[in-house]
């Protein structure tokens, strides 16, 4: 994948040197070989920090909100899921398309950092794909200003089956089993809000979970409030979740958050027809529009 990395650095350098953008957001090497966290480069001389490897996992789209109120134009490297995050933010009128320059990367899928840590560097070749990539339907960016060339062609979109396998498992449970499953998961929730903060669909200027005085959700870390948080977050991204899986990856407690998101995606597909969030700028989310033939099942 060297080719991609060299192109990344060269393009970042050019864009910054020309003044076409004021910042480039990509990835750099972190503390360990299996970490490639987000990198923010403002100096053309500093572009060799940027890396492209199988651990460039973080979805970068959300960072654009930090620069929403600056005049800066920002270049962003986008994998398939980063680009879908951008589409989501554009559809929510959160960012200005003119202030973003998107450099697409055909993504071969990233690897699971936690399993990499367990396997050790000697077995780097055996590290499995990240969970979020196993069922990815759009490894190639759906939106970009330029696409990096190279032999690292994106793997073909994963087959659809398996995408809802976790959902099927939970659906097969009895109500009591399902209750036990979700309470066990969310009893662990620390309410650190990493899932919310990383999510490109969670972009409210003021989140109710940052307003404990409002009385909607108590700050107690206990079952009722944790469940209220879990369900509210999931319902709030209904129809807008781009399946980048970042919420589940960043959860320090390993809560299977994507099973909840995918259950809602599956239900929406069944109720309103197939829809993939963040793929087509012109196609509004099913719950973000009104149609005369929408099913009326609000009882």
């Amino acid at each position, binding site marked *: 994948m060297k080719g991609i990395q060299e192109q990344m650095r060269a393009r970042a350098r050019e864009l910054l040197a020309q003044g076409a953008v004021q910042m480039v957001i990509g990835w750099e090497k*972190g*503390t*360990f070989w299996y*970490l490639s*966290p*987000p*990198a*923010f480069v403002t100096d053309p001389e500093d572009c060799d920090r940027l890396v492209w490897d199988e651990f460039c996992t*973080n979805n970068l789209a*959300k*960072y654009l909100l*930090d620069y929403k109120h600056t005049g800066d134009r920002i270049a962003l490297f986008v994998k398939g899921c980063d680009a879908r995050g951008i589409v989501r933010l554009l559809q929510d009128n959160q960012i200005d398309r003119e202030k973003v320059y998107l450099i697409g990367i055909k993504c071969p899928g990233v690897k699971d950092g936690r399993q990499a*840590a367990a396997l050790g560097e000697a077995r780097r070749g055996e590290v499995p794909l990240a969970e979020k990539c196993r069922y990815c339907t759009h490894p190639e960016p759906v939106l970009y200003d330029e696409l990096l060339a190279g032999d690292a062609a994106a793997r073909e979109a994963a087959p659809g089956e398996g995408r809802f396998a976790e959902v099927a498992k939970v659906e097969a449970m009895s109500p009591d089993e399902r209750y036990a499953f979700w309470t*066990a*998961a969310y009893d*662990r929730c*620390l*309410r*650190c*809000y*990493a899932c*919310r*903060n*990383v999510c490109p669909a969670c972009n409210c200027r003021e989140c109710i979970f*940052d*307003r*404990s005085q409002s009385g909607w959700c*108590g*700050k*107690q*870390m*206990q079952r009722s409030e944790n469940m209220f948080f879990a369900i509210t977050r999931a319902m709030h991204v209904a129809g807008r979740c781009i399946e980048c899986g*970042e919420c589940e*990856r*960043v959860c*320090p*407690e*390993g809560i299977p958050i994507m099973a909840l998101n995918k259950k809602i995606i599956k239900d929406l597909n069944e109720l309103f027809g197939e829809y993939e969030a963040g793929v087509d700028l012109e196609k509004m989310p099913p719950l973000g529009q009104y149609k005369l033939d929408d099913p009326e099942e609000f009882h």
Partner: protein
Amino acid sequence: MLKIIRDKLPELLTAWARGARVLVPRERGGTRVFLPWEGEGELALGQGNTLEPPKDLFFPRTETMYRYQVQGKDASLAEEPAADARQVLVGVRSCDAKSLAIMDDAFLTKGYVDEFYRQRRENTRVIALACTEASPTCFCTAFGIDPGRAEGVDVQMWPVEGGYLLEAVTEAGQELLRQAGDLLAEEGDAQPPAAAVPPLQVDVSGVTEKLQRMFEHPYWTAVSRKCLGCGACTYLCPTCYCFDIQGENQGDSGYKFRCWDSCMFSEYTRMAGGHNPRPSKKERLRNRFLHKLQYFPERYGKFACVGCGRCLDRCPVNVDITRVIREVKEVTL
């Protein structure tokens, strides 16, 4: 030195559990945490740390402080019964043991004693487990902590072939070992195994003094860019002790509770009129690092970090305190 064979350890825990709640690292949902021992099941005393630190057992995520009744203009309140249940905490690593000394400073000194914390702390015996293998994220020795022998504990344990060596450190520890009866055998010539060598090295000398001159430095803008502003680092940190106090009404009555809070959240410092002295993640991240490396040392004479590596292990964007320390020392003023 006394030894217990591995298979007998559950019996020892059960013996202790007759007079106290015994908490020991166990598997839960794919992670390892301190859970009550109820007489059966697997232990998870292998290499490395629990996902969550044991602070919850002294300073619960959420605890009721008092209950109240309000009727018209009248009101009354009742304090919660004292948290005086005895606890025995087994398998605490040296880093986490040191974190208790840091929590003690925060909760028990400087003019006020936090009664909720004091009750639990005084009623808890701590049994340390030495590290003979470190995790990649460990750096306890940077803070002068010996992974092979914990400070401030009642009993020290070492993993050895086929079992554990135990040594009582305090009188309470001796009493616990007496309760073990013939589960323990004397191993006169046994030597504790060599302590683990943490792979991450960082030299913290001078970092407080450097930070004292760096409050306005642009470094904080750069280092905070990737931060998501979540509270994972603070909630998993064994030395983060910030809390909030809130109430919950249920009709005419209700209760006041305190719960963990995080300096990474906007609401933490936002005042009633809307002013926020730490309005963005830059100020909040800066405060977190300054608290650990400058403010706490200034106030209590020690760093508020024990090198357990939990924040580094779980941060979604690899904000790495060892790297921050190195970079701070390299920054030109």
